[in-house]
């Protein structure tokens, strides 16, 4: 039966070239827009190199301190004291890593040829970072715990920066000047994409190599500082246990304090933390309204378009439907037939849309993704945003693409087809001149 539908749909497609073209283009555009939005979000949360452990990674970004007397509060991230005394000592986790992100510090490499300084993105972290984020080492290994403990400037370098500086990736043991300080290459990794922002950097160094990494920042509260903390857990159960352990620590701490209260918004599982801005709680309704609304409108407008076209076509096909009915076909069967025929067109449109989306995402990789951020975080100079195979060709992308096609098909074809099929046989047959 399905084969018959397919055959008939193919014939109709060939007969009504204009209708098919308009239909496929309209659907293609809608699917392309929807898929661009989907892929941008997919990249934020899915397991993508080197953040393949996202499902087991919990993140603590925001830390707040409320001052009970003055009713004021300060918001930032974890201080070194919290990292050292609390987070590194957590029990319900496999690995803990901290990334030091001091505000306003920029890093520059001084090239040997006395050219202008090269601005580089550096992540100041610890050796555990490379256990949580699964980097592929092209040469050697991460800086060691001994390097970290003594604050030696032994760096892990991204392959593209290695090529830019030395013309090769075979650079372990070589040195270069970072902020006028000697830096030795300890290992070379396959580049992380700018889109996987938790792991992206061109250079990774022990945070202990930064002067003042253990300072209480600017005389502020000793709980607040510049560290983002990543916890790798075994499974969701351990994640929940970790959260409970953190909550218990905070509860005990607050019970011992009279003047202030520590408030943590987290740790969150990775995908939740990707949508949390600053210290504000996640507003799901706002997210759903924003993105769901956008996708719905992306589909609704073309659906109305297609509704109009399908209803015109159904009028033309009424005599054919009348004949089918006269030979005993019931309404449900004819409806299935019309929907299947349309689904084929929709899927062709979907394929076109998917290709369009890929073209847009690849050609506009340096700016398309930043469109969906509240504040533009521009791609650093000299960095080409990597859009990898696993970002674009994941089974999820195809599944969602097909689901969107189905939805669009139902939205656009169901109502006009149902209306047309309600006409009785005599009326339908009378439409034939």
């Amino acid at each position: 039966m399905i084969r018959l539908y397919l055959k008939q749909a193919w014939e109709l497609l060939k007969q009504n070239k204009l209708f098919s073209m308009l239909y496929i283009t309209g659907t293609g555009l809608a699917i392309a827009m929807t898929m661009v939005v989907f892929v941008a979000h997919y990249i934020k949360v899915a397991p993508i190199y080197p953040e393949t452990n996202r499902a087991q990674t919990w993140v603590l970004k925001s830390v707040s301190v409320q001052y009970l007397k003055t009713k004021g509060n300060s918001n930032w991230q974890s201080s070194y004291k919290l990292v050292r005394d609390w987070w590194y000592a957590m029990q319900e986790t496999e690995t803990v890593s901290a990334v030091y992100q001091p505000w306003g510090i920029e890093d520059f490499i001084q090239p040997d040829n006395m050219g202008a300084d090269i601005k580089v993105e550096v992540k100041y972290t610890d050796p555990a970072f490379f256990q949580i984020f699964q980097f592929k080492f092209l040469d050697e290994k991460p800086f060691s715990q001994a390097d970290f403990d003594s604050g030696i400037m032994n760096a892990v370098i991204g392959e593209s920066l290695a090529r830019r500086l030395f013309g090769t990736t075979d650079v372990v043991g070589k040195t270069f000047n970072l902020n006028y300080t000697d830096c030795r290459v300890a290992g070379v990794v396959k580049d992380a994409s700018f889109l996987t922002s938790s792991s992206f950097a061109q250079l990774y160094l022990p945070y202990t190599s930064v002067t003042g990494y253990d300072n209480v920042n600017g005389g502020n509260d000793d709980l607040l500082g510049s560290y983002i903390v990543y916890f790798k857990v075994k499974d969701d159960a351990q994640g929940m246990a970790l959260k409970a352990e953190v909550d218990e620590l905070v509860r005990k701490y607050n019970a011992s304090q009279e003047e202030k209260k520590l408030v943590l918004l987290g740790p969150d599982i990775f995908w939740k933390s990707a949508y949390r801005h600053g210290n504000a709680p996640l507003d799901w309704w706002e997210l759903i309204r924003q993105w769901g609304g956008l996708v719905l409108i992306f589909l609704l407008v073309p659906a109305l378009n297609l509704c109009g076209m399908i209803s015109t076509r159904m009028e033309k096909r009424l005599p054919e439907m009348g004949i089918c009915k006269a030979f005993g076909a019931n309404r449900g069967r004819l409806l299935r037939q019309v929907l299947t025929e349309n689904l084929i067109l929709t899927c062709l449109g979907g394929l076109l849309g998917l290709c369009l989306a890929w073209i847009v995402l690849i050609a506009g990789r340096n700016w398309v993704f930043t469109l969906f951020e509240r504040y533009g975080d521009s791609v650093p100079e000299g960095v080409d945003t990597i859009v990898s195979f696993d970002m674009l060709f994941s089974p999820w992308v195809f599944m969602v693409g097909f689901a969107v096609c189905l939805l669009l098909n139902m939205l656009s074809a169901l109502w006009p087809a149902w209306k047309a099929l309600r006409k009785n046989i005599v009326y339908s047959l009378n439409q034939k001149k």
Partner: protein
Amino acid sequence: MWKLIINNLWSRRKRNGWLLAELILVSVVTWVIMDPVVVLLHDTSLPLGYDADRLYLIEMASLDSHAQGYDEQASDSASRTDNFFRLMNKIRNYPGVESASPLLVASYLNSQGNSSRGFQVDSLSLFTRVMYFNPGQHYFETYGIKAIPGSPSAEELSKADYGEHDIVVTRNFAESLLPGKQAIGQQVFYVDYTGDTIYYRIAGVVENIRAYSGERASLVTFWPHFRWNIGEQTRVLVRLKPGISSGHFMNEFRPWMVKELRAGNLFARSVISYPQLIKNYEYQWGTSNKIRLNAAVVIFFLINLCLGVIGTFWLQTRKRSEEAGIMRSFGATPGYIMRMLLGEGFVLCTLAFVMGCLGYLQYALKEGLYGINSFMSRIADDDWISSFETHFLGVSLIVYIIILVVVLIGIYLPARNISRVNPVDALRDE
């Protein structure tokens, strides 16, 4: 002709109903999306109030204590200041440089950081942006900020002998806080966090400026900064002489800067042109992204609308051709038929647009139209964007024109075929 158009539309109301629904939806959606684009484009195109052309910003930095070449002797405040002046002299003597001014606080035009202060006169209180300048360093003329008539000139304001509580203000500040008064010499005050009232004397008034791109001309006060805190937040503003090309200057200046602009632990790190700095600022604060994203979405909807109109009219070509054939045989010209078909589009579009706009108006009356969410922008500007009525009508007109053009293009393509039909061919089946 209008009667015929309405009759035609009515007799095909079922088919046109879908198109009408789409048009209404697209009208509302285009309104919602175009409003921020119109406002942002309007605001970013307003005059800056200073001259950003031929203006450059040099970022300075100093060596870290464990960096190679770090000079312990040159690390004290006096040596740093001496070295900084040495570099300033080098910059001022560089060929093509008209003037240069240090910026020692991270609150300058389109800076990443910012500073603000609420000022009062009597019971009137307003927030202002605060900019800092070092007197005697050509600040105002380097920026190209103009003094208003009756105030000391920009050059005089740059080198005046300021007291600790003297400030220079913009025209809108003077007009808002001291309406109808000669502002120079007047006092304004603010109450600090301890509750003390601190008075400031207005030493000069300059023309309005847009301190941050994306904002309209906010109230700005310029505060003299007397300290020479040379460190990470040290920048130098440079204005080139007229006629020097930007590309040529950057090509020559950059390598010279890397080689020559270093003294003690201090060195020049980068140089950026002001238009580029403003662009970066707009990007960072989401202005560019909002315009790009909204423009992309509007184009998507308009293409859809165009496809919808083409589809609806093209799929009716055969039937409409028969009608057109009859009309032609009764003497109608192709031009008349074309006008009639375009007229159908016009009526449909206008009807949908009015319905969509009325719907959106209800929302806008409740929620307000798009405005910049800055507490600095409370001052009522007298441009059309600031008034609800003209803002609504202006954006409505833009949306209407866009949709109408798209609909007419969509109809024109099939209408050309219909209107040129040969009466004999069209009526063969009749």
